[in-house]
């Protein structure tokens, strides 16, 4: 009887200590994972946030922009100013004689001296920081399953070209016109927003091979 009890107790102690040892080994493994190289380079990939949470947070950023500065967000306008900077360096006379470009870089005006340039630079850093923190920094090409990387690159280039042209014609892109103008209830911004969706849905069926 006593022997049996002793046996049970010793087994219990053994299993507890065994578990402890297992736990400890897990702990040391996770400690090992915490070296600098892993922290900086091999961060585990996390899921995207829920779209409603993302929308809410983006809304807070947009609100903060309007609340403190009276201006919304922007992207294509900032890129525009980098292009004009290069044009102004290569062909200043051409810039000074084209009314559209003159407004941004005529004479000794610096095209980068504008709020939207800062927003673009900030968003580059912010996107990178978030990609790194959430383990999503990776050289890869996102594409539909039935096209090659090269096709995807070509369509990205062509799509970008069309998008850039349209954005400047509309005087704003999704961020500067649809989001910002939409939140302050500009009629043009709402007309633009529905046009973007209409344009994309109208063509989506014909280019489905690219994505499906």
């Amino acid at each position, binding site marked *: 009887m006593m022997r049996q009890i002793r046996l049970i107790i010793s087994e219990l102690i053994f299993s507890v200590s065994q578990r402890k040892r297992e736990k400890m080994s897990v702990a040391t493994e996770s400690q090992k994972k915490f070296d600098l190289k892993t922290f900086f380079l091999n961060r585990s990939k996390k899921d995207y946030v829920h779209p409603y949470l993302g929308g809410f947070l983006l809304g807070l950023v947009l609100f903060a922009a309007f609340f403190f500065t009276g201006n919304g967000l922007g992207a294509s306008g900032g890129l525009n*100013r980098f292009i004009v900077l290069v044009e102004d360096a290569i062909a200043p006379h051409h810039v000074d004689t084209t009314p559209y470009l003159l407004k941004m870089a005529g004479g000794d005006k610096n095209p980068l001296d504008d709020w939207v340039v800062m927003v673009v630079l900030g968003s580059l850093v912010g996107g990178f920081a978030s990609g790194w923190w959430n383990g999503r920094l990776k050289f890869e090409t996102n594409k539909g399953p039935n096209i090659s990387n090269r096709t995807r690159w070509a369509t990205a280039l062509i799509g970008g070209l069309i998008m850039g042209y349209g954005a400047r014609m509309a005087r704003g892109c999704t961020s500067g016109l649809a989001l910002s103008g939409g939140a302050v209830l500009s009629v043009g911004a709402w007309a633009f927003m529905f046009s973007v969706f209409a344009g994309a849905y109208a063509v989506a069926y014909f280019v489905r091979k690219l994505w499906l």
Partner: protein
Amino acid sequence: MYPFPLTAFTVTSVDNPWTYVVFLVIGFFFGLVLEISGFGNSKKLAAQFYFSDLTVLKVMFGAIVTAMVLLFTGIGLGLVDYNLVYVNTTYLWPMIVGGLIMGVGFIIGGFCPGTSLVSMTTGKIDGFFFVGGVLGGIFLFGETERFYDQWWNVAGYMGRFTLMDWLNLPNGVVVTIIVAMALFMFWGSEQLERIFGKRDLAKEPKLRVAGAAALFAMAVLTIIIGVPSQDQKYSRVIINRTLAGTEVKTPYSADAALAAREMQISPAELFKTIYDQKTILHMIDVRSEADYNLYHIRGAINIPVSQLNSHIKSFLAEAKPNAVYVVMSNDETAATTAWKMLVAESVPNSYILDGGINNWIAAFGKDDPGIKPASTTADDQLRYIFPAALGDRYQSCDPSPIEYEAIEFTPKIQLQMKRDKSGGGCG
């Protein structure tokens, strides 16, 4: 004066480096939120148009309604001056055509400009190519805009035109309609995801229903709060004046500035301002059309006080930091009423012609043949008799800049630099 937006941040320039830091921080969080929402991934963006994953619509409309409800609550409470918030100027046709073109680019390229930046910095190679394309497209537009410059600048131009102006409804009602529409679209997109994306809606967080209810409640709250009246806005106006001989700015309430005669500019100063290349002068004659036809300063436009409110929107839309508005009546009574309306609505650099048209004629029209003093002493009436309604064809309507070259006055006009709108929106 409203506390927000902060005047210190409304003009970005190298002279004011803090604004750069502020916009960098805003940009940082913009990029961060785009990334965590999955907007760096073209597949997720394109899925919007095949109904399997409507993240794009949910995030976009979620952001718009969140910002809108917060902003209009602030406006209703008198925290934010809506007239100083940049509202994208409506150029209807370029916006519709440009939007359709962008839509096509979106589905072919898989990004929009903002998201492609985030995609690029997180190493997505298609993002690199897309950004290259966008830069090319922007360059092409800059080089081809001149071929349809006229169309691009005037087609469907409506100025600062809001949904409230279009529907003729108060702010709060429009905000509530937009929120209701967004909630309906969220519901619709979840149904589409269930059908096309085979998503199990039971797994969606329950919290989203509470969020929707809170959003709707806040929208209804904006109806209840309403908007500040013009009188309330006027009572909050603060005008900073740099007094003669000092460097510091002294704040005045609007009434105090009027009483100190800081806002009334002499006929001589107005005359000199007409020829000042550094300012864009708008002379607004608020008298009756009959008086205006009898005599007015050349270049002045006639907007009777009763019609002024409907013009204020266009002043705001086209306001440049160096625009100066000078209102005038026969004496000062009607002009002062008009001036109060302008400053209440944050029209920058507004002034009154000291002594009105009567004082102008006293200064420049003494030798004008035909103009004779009348015996009337009633307030805000013309104190001169005109042989005919010649409008601005009397000699003194456009005094000779040579004859009055050396005219002296105490300058009152001080540019406030409220906002440079040339860079508004996406640039």
